[in-house]
Every structure is written in C-alpha cells, then in structure tokens.
C-alpha cells in the first residue's frame, strides 16, 4: 500500500512541477492593497502577453523590509510614497528609469514632475496622488460635529476611531494641530506630536490601511481617518459616508512607480508603467480607485460625477490649506521610534 501511495505522490509532484516553472514573460508587481483594478491587470496581459504576478502590502515600511530581505531581487515594480522614494534611492535600492521606454511620461502633469524627492524623475514616475482626511458616517454622527483633526480627540469617541496604519499620516494630524509642518524634521516637534497622539490612543479602535473603507461600510466604525479614494469607493456603496477635509489641512501624498535595483524583468516593468499611464487605463484607475491621476489626457475621458467630485479632485483652496508629504531625511528614525511607541501602547 505504501509503495502505491508513494507512486501517486511522485506522480502528483511531477504533474505539479511544470506549472510553477513555466517560462512565460512575467512582471512581478508589489503594490498597495487595492490600488490597481483587476480588469486593468488582465487587459495588460491580454495586450502584451506578459503575465502579472501581483502581491500587495499595507505600509511603506513592510514593502521596504520585504525588499531588503530579498535583496531587491524578485520584484520588478513597487509603489513607494515620496519620502520612501528618496530613502530607497539614497540607499541604492532602485535602478534608474529609462524614460525613452515610457513615451507616455511626456504627457504627465508638469506640476507633479521633477520634485525634490527625486530631481529629474531619475528613479520614479508618478502613479497617483490623493489625500488623507476624515470619514464620517452621517447616518450616525452629524457631519458638522467633525470638521477638524482636533475633533477626533473628542472624548465621546472612545474606542470608536479608525486610523490609517501609516506613520506619516498619523503624525500629520498632530503636527498640524500643533501648528507645525507635517514634514517637520525637528525632534522636539515630533515628540510634542507624539505626546498629543498618546492622548488620542484611547479613542482608537483599530489601525487599517489595507482597505479602510470596509470597517466603515460594515458599520464597525463611524468616524476616523481615510484616504480620499477609499472614501470615494465607500460612497458608491453607502452615500451616507462623507469625506471631510479637516480645517487644519489635509495630508496630500503621491505614490510613484519605481524599479528595484535587482529587478529581473526590467523591460516588462517599463512596459507596464507606460501601459498604466495611457489615458484610457488611467481613466479606469481613477474611476475605480477614486484617486487623482497625473495623466492629463485622462481627465476629459472621466465621467461627469468623477471629474466634478471634490473628494477626488480637491478645489485649489483645499490643496493650498493642506500640506504635501515630502522627505524628512534624518528625522525618519525619530518618527519611527515614536510610531513604535505609539503602536505598542506606550
């Protein structure tokens, strides 16, 4: 009997083997959870024959740790936020982008190009940008009760809030309330922000930056932080969920395509970037994910309600009141230290 069983297993192993080692063209994409619609990935494979191996992360830190662990080999494309683009390029973890391979790059909004975190877009190409503000379920909490970050500190919301599981975004709130820049590099200011956040912790029910809209939709939380795109997606299912730009200023951020230094499928990665920047594709991404795109030619293609949505495309005054997330240089470990303390309940 044993020998029969062994034969079956040997056979099974042999049958399974070829699937894992197929030598088709591939591109390994490591991205934020729910950041590219599945249909877009399928279309890419259909058009180019390149298979997309897609895995996800929920924070810049996790992505960075994983990339370091595999010594940059294995992933062909990742999507760090601005300040991680500079950190990773400084540490030699990225390879330069060949702009000649991405013709669609010329069509991008010049106002998001050539930023201090990556002068001349040597290592990065902008993918999407958005904001972090406040979500309120207006069926439960009147929207006038929550107009500022400070309002989240209200003792009434004990064990009620959802915060993004993102260091910089959480510190943004407290730095703004204190009247500092959310890109502060001053340890004293960061510590003050930490002290303020400590007072917020009793109100915090959970951290989530996989898909923060779900706890709102499930009725688990009714107020807290959210990304504008997630708020947009939530509104499609429950219009009672409002997105509020806090009076102290929302947090604005951008994520970029970068190619890790050890990437094996360099050419495919470039093809993928170029594909994603095509107006018709960018349009799908905006409409599905609710984040803004730097692809200018995609804007006229958008449906009316998307183009006019202030959740996705904030008015100039709101952008001006907010602050754009940039590199904090040497202060990053300081943030990390206080974030660690905050998360472990210190």
């Amino acid at each position, binding site marked *: 009997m044993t020998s029969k069983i062994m034969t079956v297993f040997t056979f099974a192993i042999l049958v399974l083997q070829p699937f894992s080692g197929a030598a088709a063209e591939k591109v390994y994409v490591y991205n934020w959870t729910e950041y590219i619609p599945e249909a877009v990935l399928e279309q890419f494979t259909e058009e180019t024959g390149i298979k997309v191996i897609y895995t996800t992360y929920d924070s810049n830190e996790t992505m960075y*740790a994983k990339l370091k662990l595999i010594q940059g080999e294995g992933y062909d494309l990742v999507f760090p936020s601005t300040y991680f683009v500079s950190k990773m390029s400084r*540490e030699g973890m990225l390879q330069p982008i060949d702009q000649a391979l991405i013709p669609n790059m010329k069509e991008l909004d010049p106002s998001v190009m050539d930023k201090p975190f990556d002068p001349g877009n040597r290592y990065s190409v902008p993918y999407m940008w958005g904001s972090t503000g406040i979500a309120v379920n207006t069926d439960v909490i009147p929207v006038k009760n929550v107009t500022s970050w400070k309002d989240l500190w209200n003792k009434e919301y004990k064990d009620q809030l959802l915060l993004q599981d993102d260091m910089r975004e959480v510190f943004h709130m407290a730095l703004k309330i204190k009247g500092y820049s959310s890109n502060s590099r001053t340890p004293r200011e960061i510590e003050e922000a930490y002290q303020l956040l400590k007072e917020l912790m009793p109100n915090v029910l959970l951290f989530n930056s996989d898909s923060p809209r779900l706890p709102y939709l499930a009725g688990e939380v009714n107020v807290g932080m959210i990304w504008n795109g997630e708020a947009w997606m939530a509104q499609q299912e429950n219009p009672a969920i409002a997105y509020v730009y806090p009076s102290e200023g929302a947090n604005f951020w951008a994520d970029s395509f970068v190619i890790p230094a050890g990437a094996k499928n360099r050419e495919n990665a470039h093809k993928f970037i170029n594909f994603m920047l095509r107006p018709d594709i960018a349009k799908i991404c905006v409409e599905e994910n609710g984040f803004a795109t730097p692809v200018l030619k995609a804007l006229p293609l958008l449906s009316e309600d998307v183009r006019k949505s202030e959740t996705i495309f904030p008015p100039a005054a709101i952008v001006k009141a907010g602050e754009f997330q940039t590199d904090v240089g040497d202060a990053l470990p300081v943030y990390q230290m206080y974030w660690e303390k905050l998360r472990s309940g210190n």
Partner: protein
Amino acid sequence: MKNKVQLFSISLISGWVMLFGGAPLLLLLITSFLKQHPEKFYQFSFSVQSYFQLIDPAYLDIFLRSVRLAGLTMLFCLIFGYPFAWFTGRLQQHFRAAMLIMLMIPFWTNSLVRTYAVRMILGTHGLLNKALLAVGITESPIRFMYTDSAVVLGLIYLMLPFMILPLYANIEKFDYRLVEAARDLGAGPLQTFSSVVFPLTLPGILAGCIMVFVPTMGLFYVATLLGGARNLLVGNLIQHQFLVSHNWPLGSAMSVILILMMAAMLALYWLVLRRFSARGQVYHA
C-alpha cells in the same frame, strides 16, 4: 551493512536538526546581542541594549496581556474540552473514532479561512448580532469585533482540538474501574473526580495546556483579523519588529525571552510529572 544504515539514518536526522533547528536558534540568540542599524536591520557589534529596551513597561504590558489571553484560551479549551475527551473515552470503540473524526474535520480547513468565518459571525451586521436582534435580547447591534473577547474566541476555535487530543490519549488509557472502586468506597462524584480522576489525567491536562498555550502566544494573524488597535499579542510585536520597525536585535531579544518562558513552562511540566509519577509508585506499593 549495519553501520551504513546506522550511520545514514542517524547522521541525516542529526545533521538536519543541527543545521535547520539548532543553527537558526543560535543565530537568533546572537542577533539579540547585536546593535540596531537603520538600513541593514542589525550591525555587528556586541550590545545588550535590546534587553534593556525590553524592560519598557509597554512591552511588558503586551507580554502580560498575551499571557493572559493565552491563559484564558487555555482555560476555556480545558473547560470545554475535558468533558468531550472524557465522555468520548467512555463511548464504544467505533463511536469514539466517529467523534474524533467529527472533531478533526473542521481543522482540515485552512485556519485563516476559519478565523475569517468567525469574523463573519461576530461582525456588527454578522450572524450573532442578527440572531440577538431577532430574539430581542438587544436593541442595537453589539460590537464584538476588535475586542479581547473576539481574539480569545477565535483562539479557542482554532486551538480546541489541541487540548482535546492529548487529553483523550490520556483518558483512553484510564481504567474506569478505579472510578467504580472509589464510588463503592463511598466517595461522592466530586471527591472521586478530585482524588482519583483528576490526578490520573493530570499528565493529559498538562500536555493539552502546553499544546494550546505555546502556539497561542505567537498566532499573530488572529489578533490581526479579530483584534483592534490595542489587542496586540507578542506575536504581533515580534512581527512588527521585523517587518515594520526594522529592528532585528529587539525582535530577536523578544523571541529569546519567549523561548525562556516556554522552557520554564516545560520545566514545570516535567517537575509536576515527576512528582506525580513518584506518587503513583507509592500508590502501587
């Protein structure tokens, strides 16, 4: 020929255990005495700073909370599992097998999927709240999710068979005539249990408790899926050190402490077992 077989079988397993069992743990110990490095996770210079960092009350808190949650899980598993093992052991042979198979079938399903199923039941609009609302026990949905209770419930759900199986293995060998003898000698049910059944099944109880307690301390995904911002377990903390804070020495130091804790529990187990078997010999004499 004998030597060849002997050499091969023994050196294969010894080599494997040393290379993949001993060496990694040794490396972990070494890493815990290194210094943190912001870019490379660790740097090669001796330091005990990680252990000093661990004295931090916040970490102590999480350790204690994990012990409490794991302890609660263990206790509930014992309370629910002991009667199951006991009465199954009293059944006829083929009923016993059926019971054990019935017990094991859910555990052939991926544990993550089962945790997620628990989440579907506990949610604000989940099955449990629906039932409570329908019966009229509550007016508005109760929040079960993101609490310690949800985490413990999920852990019990995952760990129950790990309590029942060792218990059953022990109880199966139990000679039921001892209970009858005790009853004949005038012992009440409680006394029979406390002075006959309990001491004789103690090894099974301890084995089950360890089988539940140990893995529970590290099951980070249950806390991730069912717990909230403040329901972290030691497992989450260690994972955080490696994947978010990039502090390998601190994460390693936490692991070393956890291993020491487990070793202490194991030592306790042997101690009790030895005393118990010594007493057993006195009984026989």
